[in-house]
């Protein structure tokens, strides 16, 4: 068995290739592979000569499923790609469909603000998982509980908004399903109040931890030009010094109104990626605080065009027309004019894009995801070479792949 020929997955498997080289198959059940990643590595001593990540263990055919669902249903499966920040996926897909429909300009302001709010909350939640599990990879167990507690409070807010912890299908084509419920802003204020002290604790536990610093500094170095050639986006690109952020470069959903900094570092190592993500969480909280103030103003949350907006639930019992209208939207969705569109947002892992083709039917013809973590993970082939095998978990953690999205 040699690396690169699709070696079977049997956990940690060691083959002595002779002449001092050794081939180790790490994963797909290895606890630090964040899901189901297999990395076939060729070693000399402890040094990695070659690393070949094998993906696909979590392939669920979400693109195919989405192409066989109505436009209004497709976002439910698409939310399940990046399961650590589900609303980012839904947001990108739905905005793409809105572009195809030509209604991007008609989305109510309050719906756009709520989308920004939820996307930023989910960015923090996603980074919490990365921070907690990334710490565990390096032996720092306590940070995990602090980070997951923070994430759990964000999931509570998600549950309040849409009824489900992780996949609420709350964002809809044309706006939101409902307005944010009573008490949401109060819970949000509680989150904002506990966020900064919690991040202070987390930074004290992890960022300033000399063991973690030793493990991360100068590990997995990636230069700016290489990052661009490998298609790296998101925090991993900004850790090389290139301040490309879709929220700034192609503002969507009203991001041009909010003040935030595009965090960059220039070292390009695992510690730089760590620091970019940490600082980015604070920037997300800055945006959330600004949106919070705007959300005081009530307003509609669904487009006025009744072709896309189902009637309010309370009218269904009173009006025959509303009932028929609701039935039509639920049972056969609506038709989207033919055409193709590429819509990208800044997901927690980078540029999350959807290339959507409509042929005029009530189902998407083609839904192609541009998965940021697949491209980010691919660069492991480059940055692992010459590093110690023990640092492999550091590098995988610092790229922050989520396999629901890598494999889709």
């Amino acid at each position: 068995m040699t690396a690169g020929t699709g070696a079977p997955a049997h956990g940690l498997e060691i083959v002595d290739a002779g002449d001092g080289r050794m081939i180790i198959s790490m994963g797909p059940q290895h606890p630090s592979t964040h899901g189901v990643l297999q990395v076939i590595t060729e070693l000399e001593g402890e040094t990695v000569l070659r690393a070949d990540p094998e993906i696909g263990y979590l392939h669920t055919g979400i693109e195919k499923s989405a192409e066989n669902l109505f436009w209004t249903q497709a976002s439910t499966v698409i939310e399940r790609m990046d399961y650590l920040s589900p609303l980012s996926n839904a947001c990108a897909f739905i905005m793409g469909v809105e572009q195809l429909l030509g209604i991007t300009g008609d989305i109510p302001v309050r719906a756009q603000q709520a989308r920004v709010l939820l996307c930023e909350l989910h960015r923090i939640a996603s980074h919490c998982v990365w921070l907690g599990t990334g710490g565990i990879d390096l032996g720092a167990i306590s940070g995990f509980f602090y980070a997951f507690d923070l994430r759990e409070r964000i999931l509570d807010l998600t549950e309040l908004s849409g009824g489900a912890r992780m996949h609420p299908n709350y964002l809809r084509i044309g706006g939101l399903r409902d307005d944010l419920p009573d008490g949401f802003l109060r819970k949000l204020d509680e989150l904002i109040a506990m966020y900064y002290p919690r991040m202070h604790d987390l930074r004290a536990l992890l960022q300033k931890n000399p063991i973690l610093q030793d493990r991360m500094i100068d590990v997995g170095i990636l230069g700016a030009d290489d990052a661009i050639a490998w298609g790296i986006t998101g925090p991993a690109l900004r850790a090389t010094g290139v301040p490309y952020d879709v929220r700034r470069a192609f503002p969507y959903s009203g991001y041009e109104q909010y003040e935030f900094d595009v965090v960059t570092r220039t070292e390009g190592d695992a510690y730089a990626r760590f620091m970019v993500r940490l600082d980015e969480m604070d920037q997300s909280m800055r945006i959330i605080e600004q949106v919070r103030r705007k959300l005081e103003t009530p307003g509609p949350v669904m487009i006025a065009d009744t072709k896309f907006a189902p009637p309010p639930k309370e009218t269904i019992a009173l009006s025959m027309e509303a009932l028929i209208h609701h039935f039509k939207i639920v049972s056969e969705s609506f038709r989207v004019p033919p055409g193709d569109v590429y819509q990208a947002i800044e997901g927690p892992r980078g540029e999350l894009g959807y290339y959507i083709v409509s042929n005029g039917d009530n189902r998407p013809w083609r839904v192609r995801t541009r998965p940021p973590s697949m491209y980010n993970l691919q660069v492991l082939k480059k940055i692992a070479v010459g590093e110690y095998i023990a640092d492999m978990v550091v590098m995988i953690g610092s790229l922050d792949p989520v396999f629901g999205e890598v494999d889709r």
Partner: protein
Amino acid sequence: MPSSQTPPAGATALDPTAVRPDIDDARIIRVTPAEVRATLERLKSEGFAMLLDIGGADYPGREPRFDVVYHLIVLSGAARTVAAVGRPERVRVLCGVPEADPTVPTMSDLWPAADWAEREVYDLFGLRFSGHPDLRRIQMPVEWEGHPLRKDYPLRGPARERTPRPSFALKSNVAAGTPASGRTAAALQRQIAAARGQTPKDDVK
């Protein structure tokens, strides 16, 4: 659930991508497999340094049947400020690929990012990338047959042999005269009791 594997009769166009090409702000270039390499090399030298994505699309009934879609963006490693990045230009290159010869030259030597993306298009659409150093399946298992994202590939996969059922679960083994509904359990109990040589309890009429 019914599946939209073929374009519906009322669909306005066989090639939906040709209808409204100016919907987002990306420039759209259409090429043939013979031209795609030169086009992308030229774009790369013009500053489109990042290959964002390679995707596939299947339009059965159209000639050429497949599209390979390249998304490129202007980005420089020397850009160090948000203003220097600005609003980068995007371009989308659509390469029509005929079903008879589904081969496209690889871009993996120009952009290492193309490696996995091309493997995925090969895996899910069955298009070949000539010159690719390691063209093998990436998402599906190595022994898989067929290419799932093709429109003629069934949504729930090919028909497979089902897990064998125990004999009592087969319709042919249910004794004739079994009541149609609501009494199956009682009928089974009678069968079992009869097989054991016991008198069946007659608690259910």
